[in-house]
């Protein structure tokens, strides 16, 4: 895996396409537990990200990701904006100075992102939030040196399955506690699409 400026922009474009296509699905997932706007917010946010990236010249991956962070933070709103914003801000800081981001560096950046989301959301693993996606995906990255996009998707899929069975104790869904079991968390699902887009771009490498 090698993320350069072009690939990073491509990752965001593919993510945006998924968010647009899955807008209604994400919103439907949010309705019983939240205020039913996750899909709309994510679709709006990533569209703004793509607009921003297309209007700007970049010579560093870190700068692309910083703009992604700032745009998500200001355009997604709610709790998801600052949480996704924090994740990308941490990745951006971790890869500062690198022309291309190799797997090892990206793995390190993901650890930073997970810690950032935990700190921002004052949440940890097992509370049925987006952390239950970011954390296992990040861990999978750390472990295998021959990690492939297929492995990442496997980790993401497995994480999504286990999130479903968790009981929410943080985030707005926590209000519904045991009723949340068996329900997919919208923030976990949008995270899944983000990594699915990364896998697609990464596969294009080989």
């Amino acid at each position, binding site marked *: 895996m090698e993320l350069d400026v072009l690939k990073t922009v491509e990752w965001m474009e593919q993510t945006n396409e998924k968010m647009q296509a899955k807008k209604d699905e994400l919103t439907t997932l949010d309705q019983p537990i939240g205020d039913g706007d996750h899909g709309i917010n994510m679709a709006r946010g990533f569209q703004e990200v793509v607009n921003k990236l297309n209007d700007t010249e970049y010579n560093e991956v870190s700068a692309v990701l910083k703009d992604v962070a700032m745009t998500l*933070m*200001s355009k997604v*709103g709610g709790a998801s*904006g600052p949480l996704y914003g924090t994740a990308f801000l941490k990745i951006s800081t971790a890869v500062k100075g690198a022309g291309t981001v190799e797997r090892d560096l990206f793995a390190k950046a993901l650890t930073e992102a997970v810690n950032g989301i935990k700190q921002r959301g004052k949440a940890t693993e097992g509370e049925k939030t987006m952390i239950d996606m970011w954390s296992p995906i990040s861990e999978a990255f750390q472990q295998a040196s021959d990690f492939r996009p297929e492995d990442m998707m496997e980790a993401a899929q497995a994480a999504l399955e286990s999130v479903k069975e968790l009981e929410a104790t943080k*985030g707005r869904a926590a209000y519904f506690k045991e009723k949340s079991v068996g329900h997919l968390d919208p923030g976990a699902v949008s995270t899944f699409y983000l990594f699915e887009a990364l896998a697609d771009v990464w596969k294009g490498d080989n």
Partner: protein
Amino acid sequence: MKKIINDPNQAVQDMVNGFVAAYPDKVTLIPETLAVVRKDAPITGKVGLVSGGGSGHEPAHAGYIGKGMLDVAVAGEVFTSPTPDQVLEGIKAVDAGEGVFLVIKNYTGDVLNFEMAAELAEAEGIQVEKVIVNDDVAVEDSSFTTGRRGIAGTVFVHKIAGAKAEAGGSLSEVKQVADKVVANVRSMGMALTSGTVPAAGKPGFQLEDNEMEIGIGIHGEPGIERKPIASADTIAQELTDRILDDIDISNGNEVAVLINGLGATPEMELYIVNQKVQAILRDRGIEVYRTYIGEYMTSLEMAGCSITVLHLDDELKPLLDAPSEAPAFRR
């Protein structure tokens, strides 16, 4: 939905424009934001005071801008936190080098967005401190919150922290006194009807004609119990008892009382509630130092009220009494 608006999606922008137009010599809008700022900010030698949150709680928060209270209020969409970039602009606009203090109501979205803004400001070299207000004794967690919610008691934090900052208090002194207010203020509310978010077009929840909800939040988020409506005295008794059960205020102590209308309750009813609240406090030997009646922290056109009790001491009293030029809290 029947509302005096132009376009539901423009309601917040139109309101903010109208607010600035009402006090053109005192406040201005930070360009490209919904942040209203004191015209004389940043004020040399003074800690900047920042608050804000979702709209729909007017006169909070812009009504509390003015000498002796807030320097800037950052508005979000109705019942939605402002975003970190907007809060950051607010922080930058009031930083005079003495640091900036954030008053945040305890809602998940507000805390996330304001804390992120604080970190971004710190990265730009601005010293930031904060307090998270959680005065509502009704529920521990809600659909909007982890922990207790921040409601009308926030106005006392604005007033007292604002007075401290105006008097030249340092950032840590402002924080110390704001923490003290939060530790000593408790509130609880109830509703008869729901407000309607303009962009949603229909009421947030339904209560039957004979029903009320005790412990409701200022976004209509669920409280403790729905039950048949009772008399003002019974309502006042229930809310005040719950407040006093939660805080150690004894015979001879002094308090400030705020009877707050949630948007569609006439002052007449607030005074009726106040009559009982004062009697309860008197019976317990608690001395009421100041009483405030009116709309301070609303929930659109929700009918209902909240009661706030602030336990005062010799440090807080003069700060509560200090001059304020804020349009919604003149002293």
